[in-house]
């Protein structure tokens, strides 16, 4: 009776200093998706595709080069990347070679293009899993901080890439856009700002028909916008970084009250400097922005950057509103009608809206406003 395998040969449990098979996929985020490199061992492609066409047991560059399309197509049919569920297009460029610690690998440069390039991205990997149960796909995604890495196996063949993956530039742009958006849709902030802007440059003591130049107007606008900006930037940061925290309802109600105050000032206390109101209520408005920020999916790795970008966005949005309003205000202020009729009426209206909002928010009821 003979045995194919004798005892000692079974004891080769110390052998295999070589590790089992791995491929290395590195990805870097771009505006449209990703670029990357995929390194696949030539020894792995041999049983999969049969690189050694002339059977001399040597795999040459010539053989690898001529089989480029087959290699690329074999690999790409076993890799799927999707952004928010919709598949991205993956293209492979001309391959190169890299010598790693356990042999020669082909390097496929990749360009991944996603239609809607938003988080989360999913990556499904199945290279060689049907041939080699010990193969692993080692994925590395470059990010602003340390790369996200995944080791994919037949049992776990999907990686989900989070928002942290976006490049700093991408994140900056996204958050800045959010900032602009949120001030444009923030009617309470706009109303407050307008309530301070409309009477800018005007003084109660002046004669109603006296001509005024740009200078007082600009000076007033700059002062109050700066005061408002400084104040809300401070509290936005404090709240977003969780250093100070106030109840949302209190914040929202106070914002509404600020509108009332601004309206009343417009009517009755026009000569009072706007800067102080702008600053003190600006502090509260900052908390309001922070609430909004809290609802967005922020990349945890770079909160400060996102905050900064959001703030920039808010300033830019604000800037736009001011620039739009300024010429109109300047034009309107030249007419007596403006100061005599329009402004008081507007003041009452603004204050009334403010009161209504205060009631809504304070009492937690909805008046359909």
């Amino acid at each position, binding site marked *: 009776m003979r*045995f194919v395998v004798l005892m000692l040969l*079974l004891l080769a449990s110390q052998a295999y*200093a070589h590790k089992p098979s791995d491929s290395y996929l590195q990805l870097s985020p771009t505006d449209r998706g990703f670029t990357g490199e995929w390194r696949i061992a030539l020894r792995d492609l041999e*049983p999969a595709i049969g690189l050694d066409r002339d059977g001399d047991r*040597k795999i040459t560059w010539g053989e690898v080069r001529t089989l480029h399309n087959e290699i690329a197509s074999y690999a790409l049919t076993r890799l799927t990347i999707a952004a928010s569920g919709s598949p991205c297009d993956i293209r492979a460029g001309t391959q*190169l070679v890299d010598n790693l*610690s356990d042999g020669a690998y082909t390097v496929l440069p990749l360009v991944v293009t996603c239609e809607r390039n938003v988080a989360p991205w999913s990556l499904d990997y199945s290279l060689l899993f049907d041939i080699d149960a010990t193969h692993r796909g080692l994925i590395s995604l470059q990010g602003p901080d340390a790369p996200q890495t995944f080791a994919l196996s037949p049992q776990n063949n999907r990686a989900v890439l989070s928002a942290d993956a976006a490049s700093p530039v991408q994140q900056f742009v996204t958050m800045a856009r959010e900032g602009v958006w949120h001030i444009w849709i923030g009617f309470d902030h706009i109303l407050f700002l307008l309530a301070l802007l409309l009477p800018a440059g005007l003084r109660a003591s002046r004669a109603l028909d006296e001509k005024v130049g740009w200078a007082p107007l600009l000076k007033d606008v700059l002062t109050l916008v700066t005061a408002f900006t400084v104040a809300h930037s401070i509290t936005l940061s404090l709240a977003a970084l969780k250093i100070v925290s106030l109840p949302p309802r209190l914040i929202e109600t106070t914002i509404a009250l600020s509108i009332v105050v601004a309206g009343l000032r417009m009517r009755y206390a026009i000569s009072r400097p706007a800067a102080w109101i702008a600053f003190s209520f600006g502090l509260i408005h900052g908390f309001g922005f922070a609430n909004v920020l809290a609802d967005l999916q922020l990349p945890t790795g770079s909160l400060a950057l996102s*905050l900064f970008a959001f703030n920039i966005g808010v*300033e830019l949005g604000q800037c736009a509103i001011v620039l739009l309003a300024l010429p109109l205000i300047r034009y309107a202020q030249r007419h007596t009608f403006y100061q005599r009729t329009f402004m008081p009426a507007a003041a009452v209206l603004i204050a009334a809206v403010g009161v209504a909002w205060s009631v809504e928010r304070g009492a937690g009821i909805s008046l359909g406003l």
Partner: protein
Amino acid sequence: MTCFNNSTVSPGRHLLPAALAFLCIALLPIHVQAAPYRPAADAVVLATVPAGARTATTGPRDLQTAVARASADIELARASGDPRYLGYAQSALAPWWNAKEAPLSVILLRAQLHQHNHSFAAALADLDRALVLDPRNAQARLTRAAIHQVQGNYAAAAADCRSLALLAEPLVTADCMSRVSSHRGAARGAYRKLLAMRDRAGEMELRQRREIELTLADISTRIGEVETARQHFDQALAADGVDTYTLLTFADFLLEQREYRQVVELFERHPEHADLLLRSTLASRATNAANAGPLSQRLREQYAAHQRRGDFVPSRDYARFLLDIEGNASAALDAALFNWKSQREPADALIVVRAAIAAGRPAAAAPVATFVREHGLEDVRLTQLLPLLRVPAPAPFEHPAQHKRIPSERRI
């Protein structure tokens, strides 16, 4: 980076700090890696394929083909030292891999794969099942005896070897028994018996020849008979084709005999056997050869790449790497002790003891010393080092005459 310098006169001035900030970010160094290149000519050889390698097709999943394929893959893995083939074997058996009620042929192969992956418990479970299905299956018994021996369960190994008597050739049984009893305080007797059986047997299959010679070489080494061991190694290498286990065992022997040049030559002749890289690196370092540094770096990179997979298990060789190349005795001791949990061959004991002494923690090797003492494990290299742990060397079974030929100084 949090430049909230918003106390400027106009909103527009925010753009400057913003631009500066984003310039800073954009210039941050991205992960730097090795540069891929385009080979100079079509004829440049990038990789070689071992003989007998097949083009793996995911073909029909019938039992016979799968088993044949998996067996061939395991054989190739052993011959080449490349664990890829174990992965192919596992894939070939995929339909039955997790099945408790798999056919006997699959269970036997599965047990071997588990054993190669150091999943000894799973391997033993499969072998127990195989022997329930077929109590007279000598292959299963042999495999189980081997695992028990590696794990230091000599009594269980001996029982399995003994039961081979009715199932296998006398030579196979003798080899099995000699191996086991040589670890239990009866080394010289085991050697003599096996030698006698070998001489009586005359002609035998080449693989069996190699097997017997390696057993005799191992026993000779452990009792300090260096010249005899060398002769047995030569016979083993001449007997059959090259396989990984033979090469690395021989390389270790050469290292101990300080035959550094021969170790390097061995590696140069068989560069595809990655296990030889460690031995060759040790030899290069011992002779202060110019390539010692690059070889060490290669080894370092291989281990690092393996660890990136996330399923790296510290082995005896890794502990040797940490101790003798990286000079990190403490980490080597941790790796050696981890390895000791599942493997208890003399070489596993040796690395624990050496690492414990080097790390200044002799007490950590106490379990090893206890094991050696309890079983009467004979190994001249251990006997030399154990007193340094301040633990008595195995005395009960020793014959005073056995130690007369110990060389005065032996370093690995």
